[in-house]
């Protein structure tokens, strides 16, 4: 199934053609759609901390899932090996095809490796659910290969960028100007990986230590100066109650804490509490576009306490760059809006350039996968996935005990939707538009599945 960006098709034009308002207005709509995508709430991607393995043959240490829309693979991984050479590769779970193999001889610190693999997913169809196994090995017996995988996903690459037309006053028009603009907008869209809205699995119910910090979850997100929200679901506590904190790292140096945000005074509760808190990360010195590692820890003063679900997301401040100019809505036979106005055409070019330059904050994003939970699939209790409802389709990989998936939403997650379940299929695909009570933008949780991914495209199971 083709991917139809925003449902807007900008038509190609040709010299000699009379320009229609219906054509001109597609440029503005497309720009507006790209702008709004850059402002969308964005869930952080759950990552593991260190994944270690001792073996001289490949074995899977992580599994990631994506719904295919782009052909280029993007990866960012930190590697080290205790002796000899360590290897990390990305393999298609269903076909065995090796997308990429990396090696390192770095013994201490981290060997940071990132980049793209052109055409990696070109054999896939849009909407295909792609399962990527991350495998490691070392050449030396008993040597430990350690990776810290920030992300693997899909992206489009802007390989050819047309010089944007200047629409200079007094020059003769050319269809090429408009078609170049059109092509660039489509390339921008193509380079932008829609937020897959990874529905984050917490570690399944993490018991907190008494008066000591316990790691609960790691996640990754790119920095921009909007709100960063952490939602934590917790229960129990004694003494002065439960606390949690978020340690923030720059991924270029993933072991050095840049800042710590602590949430104290959570109190004591005998029932699950779902509460959110804004983290003032704009005061921590990050630069827009930095990859940031988020590490959530919890502690309890005394007694028992648990955290079972965590979600991070970056909200949008909805503040647009002051230089962004909304182009006119052309309208034939109107007093003012029927004129081509070269000054209005220039807005199309300058807005497009702003998106290309990343001036509209960090456009495009590049993360688009969902990692597997950090314990063997099917072994965990109460596995759940949390995210923001932004896309129409939800693909769920069935839990091994064929549990029926449910959606929890609303205040304190008190509302539930039981989803239908076909025991003959590994992947269940749901049309969330059939549940109008689940509003777009709602934070919700999926339980009873090993993996859950939202998608704009209709997901096609292997």
């Amino acid at each position, binding site marked *: 199934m083709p991917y139809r960006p925003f449902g807007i098709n900008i038509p190609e034009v040709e010299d000699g053609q009379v320009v229609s308002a219906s054509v001109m207005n597609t440029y503005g709509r497309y720009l507006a759609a790209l702008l709004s995508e850059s402002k969308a709430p964005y869930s952080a991607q759950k990552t593991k901390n260190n994944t270690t393995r001792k073996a001289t043959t490949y074995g899977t240490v992580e599994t990631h899932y994506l719904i295919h829309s782009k052909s280029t693979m993007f990866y960012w991984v930190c590697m080290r090996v205790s002796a000899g050479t360590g290897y990390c590769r990305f393999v298609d779970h269903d076909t065995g095809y090796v997308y990429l193999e990396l090696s390192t001889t770095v013994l201490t610190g981290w060997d940071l490796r990132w980049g793209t693999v052109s055409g990696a997913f070109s054999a896939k169809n849009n909407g295909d659910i792609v399962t990527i196994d991350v495998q490691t090995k070392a050449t030396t017996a008993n040597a430990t290969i350690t990776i810290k995988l920030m992300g693997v996903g899909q992206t489009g690459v802007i390989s050819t960028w047309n010089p944007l037309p200047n629409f200079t006053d007094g020059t003769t028009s050319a269809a090429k100007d408009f078609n170049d603009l059109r092509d660039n907008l489509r390339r921008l869209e193509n380079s932008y990986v829609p937020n897959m809205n990874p529905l984050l699995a917490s570690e399944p119910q993490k018991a907190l230590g008494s008066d000591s910090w316990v790691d609960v979850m790691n996640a990754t997100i790119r920095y921009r100066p909007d709100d960063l929200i952490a939602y934590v679901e917790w229960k129990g506590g004694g003494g002065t109650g439960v606390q949690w904190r978020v340690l923030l790292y720059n991924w270029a140096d993933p072991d050095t804490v840049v800042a710590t945000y602590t949430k104290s005074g959570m109190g004591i509760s005998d029932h699950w509490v779902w509460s959110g808190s804004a983290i003032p990360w704009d005061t921590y010195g990050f630069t827009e576009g930095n990859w940031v590692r988020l590490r959530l820890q919890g502690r309890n003063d005394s007694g028992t306490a648990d955290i079972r679900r965590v979600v991070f997301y970056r909200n949008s401040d909805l503040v647009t760059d002051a230089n962004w100019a909304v182009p006119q809505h052309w309208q034939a*036979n109107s007093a003012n809006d029927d*004129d081509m106005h070269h000054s209005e055409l220039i807005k199309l070019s300058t807005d497009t350039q702003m998106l290309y330059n990343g001036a509209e904050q960090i456009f495009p994003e590049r993360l688009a996968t969902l990692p597997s939970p950090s314990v063997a699939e099917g072994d965990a209790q109460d596995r759940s996935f949390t995210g923001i409802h932004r896309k129409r389709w939800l693909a769920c990989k069935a839990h091994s005990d064929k549990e029926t998936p449910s959606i929890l939403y609303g205040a304190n997650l008190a509302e539930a939707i039981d989803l239908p379940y076909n025991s003959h299929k590994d992947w269940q695909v749901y049309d969330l538009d059939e549940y109008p009570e689940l509003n777009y933008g709602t934070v919700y949780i999926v339980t009873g599945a090993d993996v859950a991914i939202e998608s704009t495209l209709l997901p096609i199971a292997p």
Partner: protein
Amino acid sequence: MQNVTGTNLATNWKATDATPVCHVYADWDGDGDYNLPDEDLTDYVLKVNVTHRLLDPVFGLPVLGAGRPAEATITLNNAGHRYSPENASGLAGTYTSISQQLCYRVPVVIDMGYVDTVNGEEVTRQFTGQIEGVQPAEAGGQRQLVYTCRGREALLERLTLDTGALQDQRIDKIIAMRLSGAGMTSMLLDRALFTLPYEWSDSENLLAHLQDLAAADGGWLYWSKEGQARFERATHWLEGTHPTVVETLTTGLAVRQDQDTSWRNIYRSVIVDYAAISDGPVQVVYRAASPIEVRPNDTEEVTCVFTTPVTGVIKPEEGDDYDPTAPLGISMEAYCLLSLTSTAGRAVATFTNTHPTLSIFVKGFFLEGYTILRGDAQQVQVDSTLGLIPGQREYHLSQNPWVFCKDQAEMLACRLLDLLQQPAIVYTWTGRLCPYLEMGDKVKITNAAQGLSEDCYIVGMQITYGPAPRMSLELIPASRVFSGGPYFVLGSSKYQDPSDEVYY
């Protein structure tokens, strides 16, 4: 206008002493050319009448989508029953296309022009089509035969297509694919303005389907004198050579000039319905009402007509989506094979029973598909500000399923309002044949005594030969088709403030 480079037709059509010529050819042997002596009917031609029209038969205006198929009647001298299908001593004895097919759909072309004193005969094609009927007639001692012919588009009139769904295709590309699928390769298609999210045909009349598509882009589809399929977008007459007046039609060249101003089809408002076409849910699109019996060692083909069009169906799984059993309920899964082919609107499921003696009853068979959803209709209304007539008169365009978005509906509504908000003026100019004029050509009609000097588009053309060539043109004033301007033309208009105008 047709290409007349190197000819003197532009002079000769106005010269009363130029000798007219008319050639008629029929492809009796069906080999794609007209090179046999028998295939040249010219010497037997008594009379020819050709009609091309873009005019809507109801409105008397070129509205949207299409004109009427071109028509021609060819009257022959049938002395000796040369062309009679029953006469084995005539051409029917040589060509089965005459004796057995009764000439039905034998390709025909008609050329007309004048003899130039330097170049000799100079002709252009006036009609390309095929014979649809034969009427031998004898009266008053004169033996004649009349062929009734229709343009190439008539070949599509009774053709239906079942297709898969095309996704995200520009309308002209869809038209091109559907024409090619029907075996028509001669086409000249403008680049359309709109891209349809989905398009499909489920046993639709192909010609009507293509005309709906053309109308949904604000343009029209018709066949030229050469039999070439032409899709012209809404702004076509403002582009290329169309803004240039091809010929001036004066009273000196005319034998008759009429003017019809009709208030009957004037409207104050135009309403256009549109309905979104989008991805629908995965759902059951076919469910067998009763068990399907498959006899031993036999196959059973079931045509499944979907309740909703689909982009594809999910292959049904034995046990989940159907249950093959023997009469007493014994599972026959091991003996039942299923193959499936599907289009957007239907599937053919073929069940094969490999058991030598037991029949299979396939129970509960159903198909799920990725459906295409048509939203509920929404409306766009544009109102005239001319105030020419009192009261409320609305023209409602509601039948086109390919109008799917508001931009499209607004464009169509405004385009229609330009045509319908004023009384329709149609000039009819009759005079000597100018053989290279085509539909949509801009001509100037003048009548000094009347004070008339008006640029018009040709929207209808009747050409007669019998023996003198004559044409009767139906013309509408250019000012009634496009209400604004000058329009911004890519490649010639300038970027500036103020600049030229956009069309709808």
